[in-house]
C-alpha cells in the first residue's frame, strides 16, 4: 500500500490562470468586507486586489506580513464562514474563492523564490533589548514570535515536541497540510531570526514562570490542548483503540505500518462529530480500512465539523452512524478491540451550546463490530498544567484566564493565547491571539522601567 501517495498529496491548488481568473471576479470593494471577516486580519481585500493589478509580490507580502501562517490558514480555514461569507459577490452569485487564491499566492512565492522576510536579521540585531520567551510552537506561538521578531525583538520559542508546528504538524493529517508545505511556511520564521528550542517542554512546577527569573522579559503561553477527552476517564488499554491525538501524531511520524495494521481491510469506527473526527475517518480510509463508521450522538446538522469536511468524509466512503451514543468497548481474550457498545438517541431540547441535546432511548443497546476505533472527542488541558504556572489563574476547566483583547493573564509579564485560553478553536484565531499578545507584550515592555 502506497501510504505516501495516500497521505502526502494535498488537494491540488490553483495555478496562476485560475487564480487570476478568480481574482478577476473580485468586486474590489470599498472597505472590503472579506478583510473584516478574517480573524487574523490577513486582509484578503488587499491581496486579491494586488493580484488583480498584477502586483503578485505585493500580494504575498500582504499575506505574510499580516499572517505568518498565511499558507496554513489558506488550506485549513473554514473560509465559507469567515472571509468568503462576507464577500459582496455573494449578492450576485457566489463568493470569490479567497482561500484558494491565498494558497496560490503563498505557493507561488515558494515556486518563484520570492521571500518577504529575506535578509531580515531583526532577531539577531535586537539581542540587546532583552529576550522574550514563547512557550509552544503552534499557531499562536509562531504568530506571536514572528510579530515580535518583526518589531526587532529577540524571541526564543520553547517546544515540547521534536519539531515546531504544533497542531499543524502533529494534529492535522498530512493530506491537509503536508510536511513539505509546513517546512516552506516555517522558513519565514527562521528568516526572521526566531530561535527555536525544540524537545524542551516547559513542564514541571513553576517552569513557565521560571523563564522570567532566567532573564526573559515576558512570556507568552501558547501551549495548546494536548490531553484528549476520553469516553471513559480510566480507560484500560485495548489493542486497536486510539485517541485522535495518538492516531494522527503516529501517522505524521510516518508510522503507517504499525498503525495501519489495525485498520487495513478491517471495520473500524471513529467517535465524534468535529473536524478532528473527520480527519481521523479520512485517515482511516487512507489506511485501507474496509468500513469506517463515524459514530455521533447527535445528527448531521449538529456536527461541529465544517460542512465541506463532513462531505469529504462522506464522499471518501465513511458511513455516518448518527444518533448513537457510544457507551463502552468489547475486547477479545487477547485484549484486542471487538466492538463498541452503542445506545440509540433522539434529539431533545436545546443545550447550552444551542444545539439539540441527544437523549438516550432505553432498551436500544446494540453493538457494532469493529477491530479498530479512534476516540475524537475533543482536547483539554493537561491535568497538571496549572502547576507549570502557579501564579497564572485558570478556570475550573484548567483553561488560562486571559482576555482575547489583550491576552494578559493574572500575572504581569505572562501572556497567554490560543486554545489554552478558549478551548479547541480555529488556527486563524490562534494566529490572531499571537498578534494580539505581541502587541500587548510590546506595550508591557514599553511601560517597564529600564
Amino acid at each position, binding site marked *: 500500500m502506497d501510504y505516501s501517495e495516500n497521505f502526502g498529496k494535498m488537494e491540488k491548488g490553483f*495555478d*496562476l*490562470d485560475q487564480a487570476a481568473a478568480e481574482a*478577476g471576479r473580485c468586486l*474590489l470593494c470599498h472597505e472590503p468586507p472579506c478583510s473584516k471577516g478574517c480573524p487574523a486580519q490577513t486582509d484578503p481585500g488587499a491581496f486579491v*486586489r*494586488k493580484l488583480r*493589478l*498584477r*502586483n*503578485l*509580490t*505585493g500580494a504575498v*507580502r500582504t499575506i505574510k*506580513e499580516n499572517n505568518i501562517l498565511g499558507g496554513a490558514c489558506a488550506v485549513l480555514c473554514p473560509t465559507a464562514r469567515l472571509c468568503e461569507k462576507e464577500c459582496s459577490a455573494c449578492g450576485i452569485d457566489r463568493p470569490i474563492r479567497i482561500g484558494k487564491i491565498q494558497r496560490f499566492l503563498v505557493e507561488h512565492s515558494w515556486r518563484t523564490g*520570492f521571500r*518577504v*522576510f529575506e535578509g*531580515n536579521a531583526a532577531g539577531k540585531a535586537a539581542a540587546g533589548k532583552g529576550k522574550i520567551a514563547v512557550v509552544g510552537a503552534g499557531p499562536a506561538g509562531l504568530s506571536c514570535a514572528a510579530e515580535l521578531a518583526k518589531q526587532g525583538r529577540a524571541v526564543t520559542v520553547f517546544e515540547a515536541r521534536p519539531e515546531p508546528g504544533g497542531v499543524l504538524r502533529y494534529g492535522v493529517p498530512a493530506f491537509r497540510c503536508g510536511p513539505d508545505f509546513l517546512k516552506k511556511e516555517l522558513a519565514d520564521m527562521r528568516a526572521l531570526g526566531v530561535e527555536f528550542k525544540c524537545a524542551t517542554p516547559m513542564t514541571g512546577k513553576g517552569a513557565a514562570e521560571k523563564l522570567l527569573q532566567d532573564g526573559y522579559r515576558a512570556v507568552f503561553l501558547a501551549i495548546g490542548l494536548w490531553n484528549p477527552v476520553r469516553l471513559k476517564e480510566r480507560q484500560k488499554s485495548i489493542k486497536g483503540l486510539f485517541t485522535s491525538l495518538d492516531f494522527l501524531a503516529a501517522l505524521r511520524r510516518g508510522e503507517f505500518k504499525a498503525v495501519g495494521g489495525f485498520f487495513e481491510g478491517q471495520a473500524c469506527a471513529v467517535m465524534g462529530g468535529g473536524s478532528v473526527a473527520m480527519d481521523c475517518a479520512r485517515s482511516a480510509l487512507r489506511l485501507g480500512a474496509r468500513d469506517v463508521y463515524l459514530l455521533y450522538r447527535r445528527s448531521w446538522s449538529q456536527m461541529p465539523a465544517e460542512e465541506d469536511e463532513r462531505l469529504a468524509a462522506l464522499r471518501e466512503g465513511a458511513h455516518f452512524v448518527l444518533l448513537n451514543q457510544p457507551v463502552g468497548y468489547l475486547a477479545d481474550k487477547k485484549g484486542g478491540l471487538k466492538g463498541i457498545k452503542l445506545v440509540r438517541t433522539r434529539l431533545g431540547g436545546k443545550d447550552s451550546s444551542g444545539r439539540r441535546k441527544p437523549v438516550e432511548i432505553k432498551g436500544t443497546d446494540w453493538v457494532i463490530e469493529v477491530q479498530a476505533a479512534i476516540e475524537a472527542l475533543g482536547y483539554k488541558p493537561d491535568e497538571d498544567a496549572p502547576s507549570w504556572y502557579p501564579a497564572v489563574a485558570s478556570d475550573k476547566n484548567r483553561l488560562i484566564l486571559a482576555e482575547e483583547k489583550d491576552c494578559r493573564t493574572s500575572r504581569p509579564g505572562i501572556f497567554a493565547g490560543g486554545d489554552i485560553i478558549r478551548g479547541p478553536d480555529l488556527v486563524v484565531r490562534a494566529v490572531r491571539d499571537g498578534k494580539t499578545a505581541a502587541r500587548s507584550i510590546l506595550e508591557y515592555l514599553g511601560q517597564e522601567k529600564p
Partner: protein
Amino acid sequence: MTKKVDLSVTFCGKKLLNPFLLSSSPVSNSAQMIERAFAAGWGGVAYKSLVSDRISIPHPSPRMHPYHCGDRRLVGLQNVEQTSDRGLKPNLLDIAYLKKRWPRHLIMASIMGFSNQEWADLAKACSDAGADMLELNFSCPHMTVEGSGCKVGQAHELVEKFTATVRSVTSLPLVAKMTPNIADMNEPALAAKRGGADAISAINTVRGISEIGLDDWVARPNVFGKGAISGYSGPAVKPVGLRFIAEMALNPELKLPLSGIGGVETWIDALEYLLVGATTVQATTGIIHYGYRIVEDMIEGLSDYMAGRGIGSAAELVGKALPHLHDTGAFDVKRQGVAGYDLDRCVGCGQCYIVCRDAGGDALEWDAEKRRPRQTQDKCLSCMICSFVCPVSGLIAYREMPAGWKRRETVTLG
C-alpha cells in the same frame, strides 16, 4: 518590507518621488481630489485643462461610456469630456494651494487657448500661481473650433506658434501634449520643440466609437439622441501609446523627455512606457476603473521588479527596450520555428484545430477518438494563434527548428 530601490526620476529638471502622475482629466479636477491622490502615492499631477473664462464650455450629459469586452469591464472608455468646468480663479487658487502644501510633488498646469493671447494669458496666470511646469493641450479631441484642441495638434505650424507664444511669457518647462489622431507624431513634436517645448506627453485619447445603440442607432454616449466620434482611452489603446512614445524616443532630432499616457493601470504598463523611453507616465482610465489606490500597486510592483533584478534606480529603465526595436526588415528570417505542443496537459477542447485550419497553416489534424490535435510540423506557419486560444497556459510554446528546416508549400487547388 519592500527592498530599498529608488523610484525617483528627474523630469524637466524637477526631481519626482516616482514617475506616476495623474493625467489631465476628471481625476485631476480639484486640489481636494488631487491631495487624496498624493496621499495615496502619486508623484504628481497634470491638472485638468484650464481655459480662459471668456467663453463657457458646458459639459454634455452623459459624458462617458464604457467599452466592455466580454466579461472584462472597461477595456476602453469613451468620453466627451471638455476642459475644466470650474472657473479659472478657483483652479489657480487650487494650484497655488497644492504647490504650497505638496512642494515635492509635480504640479503641472494644463492649459488650452483659443488664440495667441489666451495662450499667453493662461501661461502667465499659471506661472504666477506657482505651477512647476505647463502642459500645453494641443490634443483635446472634442474641440470643434479650428485652432483649438487636437485641430492644433494636427496643424503643425499652430503647435509651433502657440508654443512659442507661451515660451515668450514664461520660463517654466513646457510639455506639449500630442494627439494620436495623426499619422506621424514626430512632426508636431518637432514643431513644438522649435516653438520652445521642453518635453512631449502622449497620447491624448484616440478618436473612436465604443458602441452604437442597436435600438436607437445612436453612438454612445447618447447625448439626448446625438452621438459623436470622440475620445477613446484605456487598456485597449496602450499599444498605440507605446508606439508613439517609442517613435519619438527613437527620433535623433527630437531628443526631448517624454511622458507616456494611454492605458496605464498596473506597474507593468508603467514599466513598458519607461522601457520605450518615457520618463514619467500619466493615468486616468485606470483610476476611473479602480481609484487612486492603483498607485500603491504600481509603486510596490515596480519596486519589487527592480529589487528582483538588481536595478537600483527607475531612471535606469528609461529607454531600455529601444535598442531592441527595429524595422521588420532587420529580422533574421533564416531562423524559423513552429508551435510546439505539450499534449500531456491538453484538455481536448480543439480550439487550436479550428483556428489553425481556418486562419493558420492547416497544420493540425484532429484525433476525434482521443480528442487531441496532431501536428504536421512542416505545415506550421509559427503564427502562434493556436497558443492564443489554448486555455492551458504554456501548453503551446514557440520552438525554433534547426537551420535548413523547410516549411512545405501551401496546397494549390487550381
